[in-house]
């Protein structure tokens, strides 16, 4: 057990896996000498050499596409995208390339690559530096997606992603990188992809979230717990594809109420899939419509709006209250 920030936990996971498995390589813009603009890979090039920690040209599509090729040959590349706002140049390569080789070749080839993408807002970075890209990468099949929200999860989920035989996208919580510190069991244990964490058990309503937003949801739940009938179960999804449908369904069948919170825009966001899935599986149990708290369908601004763009505690609380007070 060591005290680590989220950043340090991510670095520790990569260092651990690189030492254990010589097929693991890192590539991306500025990942080498500078150790990444966030310093996540600091020290790794020095330790493992410039062939295993590769500074690439400024070309996100190329980063993803070369990683696909490396993975086809048997390496386990970790491709860093500097900010998830820049990942979409690689969209086709990921969703119509990396994720399709296994199927297209009848299982002959696989692409065990990781894409690390610093994500989420709250750092006053403006649109491109505050993105929540998950919805685009959940549709169509072949991509796994994990979203850690604690140092331990960052460590364990990144390890799982590196070891996974298929392309895995790791959405890293930028706003927590340095601000969140915690105990990490860094003995090389991965966390199962697809397993949610119940971070607060409760009986009256299920609040689902992932990434940095989980902390806000938990805070709201704790705050509201004083009110009778407001015993809220908070679930941190941790994996979005596949997501932990059993944990969610069981919870909602018990609580009868569901509010989903994410900072990506509402329409076609991940909350849509959760709502659609849960209304099917827990139809007779629901006391109220499934609520979605999300950003509006517009870009994340630099100033004058961004703190309202991202769901805040008041809006989360309002949605919970609406669910609790719902009347036909």
């Amino acid at each position, binding site marked *: 057990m060591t005290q680590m920030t989220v950043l340090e936990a991510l670095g520790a996971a990569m260092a651990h896996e690189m030492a254990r498995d010589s097929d693991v*390589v890192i590539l991306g813009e500025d990942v080498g000498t500078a150790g990444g603009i966030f310093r996540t890979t600091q020290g790794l090039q020095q330790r493992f050499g410039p062939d295993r920690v590769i500074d690439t040209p400024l070309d996100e599509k190329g980063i993803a596409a070369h990683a696909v*090729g490396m993975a*086809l*040959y048997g390496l386990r590349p970790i491709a860093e995208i500097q900010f998830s706002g820049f990942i979409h140049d690689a969209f086709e390569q990921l969703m*119509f390339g990396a994720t399709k080789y*296994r199927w297209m070749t009848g299982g002959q080839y696989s692409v065990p690559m990781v894409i690390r993408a610093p994500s989420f807002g709250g750092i006053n970075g403006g649109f491109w530096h505050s993105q929540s890209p998950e919805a685009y990468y959940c549709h169509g099949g072949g991509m796994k997606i994990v979203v850690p929200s604690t140092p331990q999860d960052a460590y364990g989920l990144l390890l799982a992603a590196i070891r996974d035989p298929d392309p895995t996208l790791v959405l890293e919580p930028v706003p927590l990188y340095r601000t969140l510190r915690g105990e990490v069991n860094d003995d090389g244990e991965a966390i199962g992809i697809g397993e949610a964490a119940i971070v607060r058990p409760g009986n009256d309503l299920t609040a689902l979230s992932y990434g940095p937003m989980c902390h806000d949801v938990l805070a709201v739940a704790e705050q509201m717990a004083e009110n009778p009938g407001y015993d809220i179960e908070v679930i941190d999804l941790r994996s979005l594809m596949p997501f932990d449908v059993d944990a969610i369904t069981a919870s909602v069948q018990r609580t009868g109420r569901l509010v989903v919170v994410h900072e990506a825009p509402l329409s076609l966001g991940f909350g849509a899939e959760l709502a659609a899935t849960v209304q099917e599986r827990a139809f007779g149990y629901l006391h109220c419509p499934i609520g979605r708290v999300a950003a509006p369908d517009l870009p994340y601004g630099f100033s004058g709006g961004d703190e309202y763009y991202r769901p805040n505690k008041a809006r989360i609380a309002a949605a919970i209250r609406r669910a609790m007070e719902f009347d036909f």
Partner: protein
Amino acid sequence: MVNGTSTPSAPTAFLGQPRPVVAPLLERAADLAIAQVLDADGVPNGNLAEPDLSQAQLRTMYETMALVRVIDEKGWQLQRSGRLEFWIPSRGQEAAHVASALAMDAADWIFLADREPGAMLLRGASLQSLFAQFFGRADEPLKGRRLPLLLGDRALNIIPCMTQVGAYLPHAAGAAWAAKLKGDKTRFIVYFGDGATSRGEFHSAMNFAGIHRPPIVFFCQNNGWAVSTPTDRQTAADSFAEKGDAYKVRNLRVDGNDPLAVFAATKEALACTDEQGATLIEAVTYRLGFHTSSDNPDLYRQPEEVAAWERWDPLPRMRKYLQACGYWDERAEAQMQQRCEDEVREAVTAAEAMAPSEPAAMFDDVFAEPTWQLREQRERLLAELETELETELETGA
């Protein structure tokens, strides 16, 4: 059918701006720095030295080219008669891909485009397995999931192309770099067309190759057209080869209808991999056939242009060379033709009789382990198929 025009139509008036007829670049090979061993009639013209090939190798080269032509003609007929969904002709491009693939070792990796069936043959793919792929049968190496001609087989170190033109170039470059990193001696070749050079991935892969020098041959078959788009609408550059300069990637132009020149250029490129890494080869060739079975070239190119290129058809050129060497004669030719046709006919019969995939098989190979979503979706589909069957039985439909 993949697009609308599935039946051949009579020559039509050009409906857009008519394209000028371009004389075959090979007629000005020396001026255009296009390396050749043979002239149009298969006589060594002293430009490039004849590569060191045994009689057996030369015959393999020619016989593979000839077999590819027979396959192509058969595939076309099958498509036209409705037995095959789709066809991508390789007519005219046999020398470019056969000779370059022959220059590689069996352990080398090949990333195919879609006009290189000869590469599969050279690696030992059976004719039946090829046609099984064309028919999309369950038991071909790729389980029938790809369009015909998007060939591959891991057992042969051949990777099928993604359908997006050019998108796989960095996959080849990345794989080549990985082999280098692992200390393997594997070399790589990746096939693509003139059109593919316009995609961002060409830029990415060349830039990467210039910096990292992976052991790879970028083999561009410049066949004059990308569907209806001629070279001068694809780029203003004078050649596709020279694009390599922008990345400091070694490059050259070669007569793509001259198998000996192609072989020599590819061998030389492979000999350079340790020092220079990558080579970009532009093989100047011509698509004598339709773009695909859905195409209608009469809409955009003139018969004179095709006729001028027929004179550079690689098959008679190579045959004449072999004959001049005393390695070939009319009897050998007739026997070979007969053999090719018999074998292809048998392969078609056998492949067509093979079973298509089971519906449930489509759920395999999305992930190494299916997610709960896929498991559930599979179960539901199977249940619904059963119900359908029952309903059919009930209604007698």
